[in-house]
């Protein structure tokens, strides 16, 4: 009787651990050429569930192309992307967005001549029948998200034009947008480059809280100290290849620095 129970458990366990081991996103031997330039050379790595992964590397290492590939903007020449263990093909950004991949770019994808509220809901407007938008509701949500999640100085109204914001404030708006539309995988391409210290801390705090909710993030950054402080695992790229992978416990800032600078 008890043996039976034991057997059931042991029979089920491998399946369960197998499920848990399936990464959220896996890249296998991804290649991309721009003319003669081999920008992604057999790149393979994965993003786990509820983890913050750092994608590191010097300028020209292929990080940006990698981000664009994952967000569906760039299509690889060969190789496979697996989402939840199933092969997927991103022909456009919309395909990636549908799975819940949200990207915050270096030059945050905002329209200067539109208000903060309209930017946050751009492409995903709250609309009723015939496409008429619920502007008041959008303004209230925008204002709430900006106040509570990305506490940043100087944004006094969701009706302000994005063009009149500073670089850091713009990043905050882009982050607020990503955060409001809770995604499964958040990709941040140099998100802190224009942020003040306080805003950076707020962002990291937020990434941690996303992790406890089971969401994953990929952080692309030059700042190895920041990366080491917040990330669970590191993938270092150099000249289009993955040159080093380690978890936070296995490595140190010094080791990461060495791999990044050696390429």
């Amino acid at each position, binding site marked *: 009787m008890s043996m039976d129970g034991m057997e059931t458990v042991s029979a089920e366990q491998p399946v369960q651990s197998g499920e848990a081991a399936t990464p959220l996103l896996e890249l296998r031997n991804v290649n991309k050429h721009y003319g003669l330039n081999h920008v992604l050379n057999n790149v393979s790595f994965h993003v786990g569930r509820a983890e913050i992964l750092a994608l590191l590397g010097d300028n020209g290492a292929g990080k940006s192309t990698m981000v664009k590939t994952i967000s569906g903007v760039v299509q690889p020449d060969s190789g496979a992307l697996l989402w939840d263990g199933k092969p997927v093909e991103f022909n456009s950004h919309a395909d990636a967005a549908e799975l819940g991949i949200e990207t915050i770019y270096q030059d945050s*994808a905002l329209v200067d001549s539109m208000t903060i509220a309209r930017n946050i809901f751009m*492409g995903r407007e709250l609309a009723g029948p015939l496409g008429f938008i619920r*502007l008041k509701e959008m303004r209230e949500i925008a204002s709430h998200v900006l106040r509570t999640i990305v506490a940043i100085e100087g944004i006094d109204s969701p009706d302000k034009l994005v063009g009149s914001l500073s670089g850091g404030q713009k990043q905050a708006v882009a982050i607020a947008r990503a955060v409001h539309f809770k995604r499964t995988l958040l990709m941040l391409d140099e998100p802190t480059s224009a942020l003040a210290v306080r805003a950076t801390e707020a962002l990291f705090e937020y990434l941690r809280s996303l992790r406890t909710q089971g969401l994953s993030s990929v952080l692309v950054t030059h700042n190895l100290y920041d990366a080491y402080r917040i990330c669970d695992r590191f993938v270092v790229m150099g000249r289009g290849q993955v040159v080093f992978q380690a978890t936070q416990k296995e490595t140190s800032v010094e080791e990461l620095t060495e791999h990044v600078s050696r390429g």
Partner: protein
Amino acid sequence: MLLHYGSWQKGIDMKLQESTTEAVAATREQRAKAAGRRYRRQQSAFDILIIFLIVQVISVIYGLINPSTFAYNSFANIQNALGAIPVVTGIPALGVGILMIAGEFDLSVGANFIFSSILMAQLNTNGLSVWLAALIGMAVGTGIGLLNGVITLRLGIPSFITTLGTMLIWQAGTLFVHGASSQPFSPSPVVAVLFTENLGVFPADFLWFVVLAIAFWALLQRNRIGNHIFAAGGNKQAATATGVRVDRTKLIAFSLAGACAALGGILSASQIGNIAPSTGDVLPLQAIAACVIGGLALTGGRGTILGIVLGSALIYWISDVLLLIGAPGFYITAPVGILIIAAAAIYEILRARRA
């Protein structure tokens, strides 16, 4: 006693503190509301509305002082103005303006205006019901706009070039189907009521203009399509990255520009009873001028419907005033030119200051 006083004092302090936090929150709320109002006013066509009202007040007062030499306030002048603004510039400018906000141009609106209305008049003369003829005219105009969009987006060339080309093509098209002479058009009485009758001082086409302007305002400011039009014109990459279907949005804007040009042509034909092919030549530049005066950016992404309406009205106002004071008609385009440059310069200064 002292102790008692102390605790009493403490209670007061706490109450004070509470009310201060509340007051801080309240004032922050108020400040945010005030800021919101300020930003919304800046983004409306508030500046140009003020300018428009000032010139109107000055003109009206001057007309009251000199009624015999400056007949600005006469019934005929007001009715003429309200009748001419929509068809001469206003309605085509609405379409051109929406397309400009989407980041594209249409120089072919004048040729479209003439071609669609002449086609309608000819079909009607040949025995087709005026309703069906007008519907075909509208469909052809919309199709011309859509074709501009398809060519521009498929070939990846600037719409300025595309529509410069299609302008010449449709001008030739008019010559082909009709010739260079003017085409008479006399709508049946029922149609005349809808297109040309006056409601008090308001001509029918002015009412059409108002209805259309309100509909376009709703589309631009309160509809998802409008949000996408601003996004497509303001930053194409950003719009694409957030999932806006930029090409589809632009095709809608191109089609609206074509539809407005045709509607302007049809209303004009009904009002004047005649279509002269050469009258379409100045229309595209005049429509773009109205949009620039109304605060639209040539680079796209910025503009208001009220601005387009007031821009059209201001262009008419200048020529009206000059004609009333008896200035030689030959020079009338010069002040319009000055107005365009001045308006563009003023908007640039305002934008730089607010950024």
